[in-house]
Each structure stands twice: as structure tokens, then as C-alpha cells.
């Protein structure tokens, strides 16, 4: 769907995509590390890719994508999305934070906020996220956001000619309400 609401965190907001974000997001995702650690971003990045990439789920009622922006200037520092499995009341989160904004706790803050969105706004029962095991920093973010590691799926994803292990994290509603 095309998001319309704004969700506030401490230093960040999760807000809908605007046409004026396209160029800036293009700059954030035109980055080898960002592309290497996500499933769907090519590298090198074709010109104008962000404009279509940001709107790939607009027609899907189970796709929710937000710009992660600093409250101070409203400019994108990353994106975060949740894909709902309505039949099983679960959701899968994917996110990225631009190179210049790493190691400041922004990913954890954005993740916590979208987890709240998933449980409180969408009424989900389970929310999951995964990461390549060669990128353990991402697992630490998931852990800090209250998610638990469920295990590692071996050689599960074929990306850039390599079969990659992925670690899966989740948080359940019953755990969220105790946080």
C-alpha cells in the first residue's frame, strides 16, 4: 500500500515516500555494502532505480514501506518495510540505513518503531527479520530490538554467485507486550 501515516520514534520518524525523496534514496542505496546486505538492490545501481524500487509494493495491500528520516530535517537516512502474511498474522521486516548514518542506533530505533506498528497498528502475532550470517552487526540490531534468533538456514539464498547462510530472528506478540 502507499503509506499515509507518520510514526514517531525518539530521534526518527517513519513516514510515507515522497517524490522529492527519490534522488536522496538513490544516493543511499547506490552503495556496495547496502546492496551486499539486502536481497533486492542491484549493484551497480541503474540510474533512477530508487524511483521504481520505492514504489514496488504500492499496489500490494500487504506491503508497508516507510522512509526513515531524522526528525530534525525530515530527510531520508534509510528505508524500512514490513511485508504482512495476513493468513498467518505474521510480518517480515526489511530495512537499510545509509552509510553516513551507521553506528548511531538509528537502525535499532527504526526497527523498534516498525515492530510496534506491526503489533499495535496491524495486530500481528509474529514479526521476523533475517540477515546474512556474514553481517553479524545486523543480528545485534535485531537482538537489541527485542528479537530472538531462531536458527540459521544454511546456504539458503543465492546472491551474487554465492550460496549464503541466513539467520532468522523473530518476536512474538506475547514477548512484545512484556518489553
Amino acid at each position, binding site marked *: 500500500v502507499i503509506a499515509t501515516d507518520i510514526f514517531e520514534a525518539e530521534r526518527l520518524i517513519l513516514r510515507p515516500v515522497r517524490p522529492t525523496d527519490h534522488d536522496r534514496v538513490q544516493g543511499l542505496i547506490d552503495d556496495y555494502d547496502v546492496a551486499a546486505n539486502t536481497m533486492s538492490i542491484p549493484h551497480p545501481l541503474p540510474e533512477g532505480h530508487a524511483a521504481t524500487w520505492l514504489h514496488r509494493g504500492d499496489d500490494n495491500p500487504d506491503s508497508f514501506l516507510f522512509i526513515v528520516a531524522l526528525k530534525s530535517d525530515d530527510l531520508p537516512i534509510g528505508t524500512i518495510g514490513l511485508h504482512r502474511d495476513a493468513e498467518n498474522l505474521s510480518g517480515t521486516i526489511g530495512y537499510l540505513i545509509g552509510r553516513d548514518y551507521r553506528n548511531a542506533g538509528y537502525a535499532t530505533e527504526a526497527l523498534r518503531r516498525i515492530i510496534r506498528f506491526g503489533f499495535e497498528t496491524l495486530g500481528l*502475532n509474529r514479526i521476523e527479520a533475517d540477515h546474512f550470517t556474514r553481517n553479524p552487526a545486523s543480528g545485534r540490531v535485531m537482538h537489541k530490538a527485542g528479537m530472538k534468533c531462531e536458527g540459521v538456514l544454511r546456504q539458503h539464498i543465492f546472491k551474487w554467485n554465492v550460496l549464503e547462510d541466513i539467520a532468522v530472528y523473530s518476536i512474538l506478540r506475547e514477548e512484545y507486550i512484556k518489553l
Partner: protein
Amino acid sequence: MDNPHPTLETQRLLLRPFTMQDAPKVYEYLSDSRIPVRMHRIPNPCTMEWVEHYLYKAIHEDPEIGRFQFALARKSDGELVGRMNIRVAAEHQRAEIGYWIGVPHWGNGYATEAGKRILQYGFESLGVQRIIGTVYSHNRASAQVLQKLGMRYEITRRQDTYKNGVFEDSEIYGILRGEFIV
């Protein structure tokens, strides 16, 4: 592919394509709630209409999609004893197997016997690098079958499916090409 719906063989079983004539027997097996409570996709209670639709889709599946359904038929008398499938996720060079055995035929090792052959088919004929199987955590017998096939426990996905009012945990078992021994 010249043989779109393959037939495979083991010592006691013929793994053959389904026909619509299998519908009454499949319906008989799936009417025992012990099958649908273990299978995410099978409605509980099951209906003949569901079975016919399911078999029709299996029979007319485009093999290019990489989904293969096998009726497990006992060679000695032709009796249908269960069903096993393998579906390929080509972009990740992996496949997933699934199966059920009719309750009257439980405990005879048919799932393990058919599973060995399907894993071989997956690695050798379909060319995948990894094969997984998913079971509800309460289905210990099926988890044991996957382990007997050489699949390793990898993960418990907590409350990841909702069926008949209950959130079920699922376990995923996996085997890599290099771990498979014929």
C-alpha cells in the same frame, strides 16, 4: 524436459504421477484428521471437492515451474499409500519436499524410502544444491523421518502458521548436496 511428470522407483514403491482415479483413496486418507492437523495446506475437515481440485492442479502442473507431485503406490498390489512432492526455488538452487502417508500405512518406513529417492532426484536430476523439509514441531514422527533422510535440524520458526485457531511452531530441516549419500 522430455518426461514432464516422472515416475521413480524404490524397492517397495512406485512414485508415479497422480490420476483423477486416485481421488476417492486420497479423500479417504485425508478424511482422517490426523493428516490435516499435520499439514498446513490441507483443510480440516477435508472435502472431496478440495481433493479433486488438488489432484487436478497436480496433474496439470506445468513442469517448467518445478513442482512435482508423486503418488506413492505399493508395487506388490498397486495400493496408494501416500503422497510426496518436491518443489524447486530455482533462483536459490534449492528445493523443498513435503509428504503425507495414509494412517493405515504408518510405521512401515514408506516416507523414508520414498524420501531417499526424491532427494536423489532433487540433487541429481533437478540439480539443486539444498533440500529442506518443514514440519509442525508437534509432529515428531515426521521430524524423525527427515533426520533419517540425513537432513539436519536448522531452525524452529515460532508460531509461524495459523491453522484452525492455533499458532503452530514449525521446524525446518535441511540437507546440502555434499551431505547427501545415495
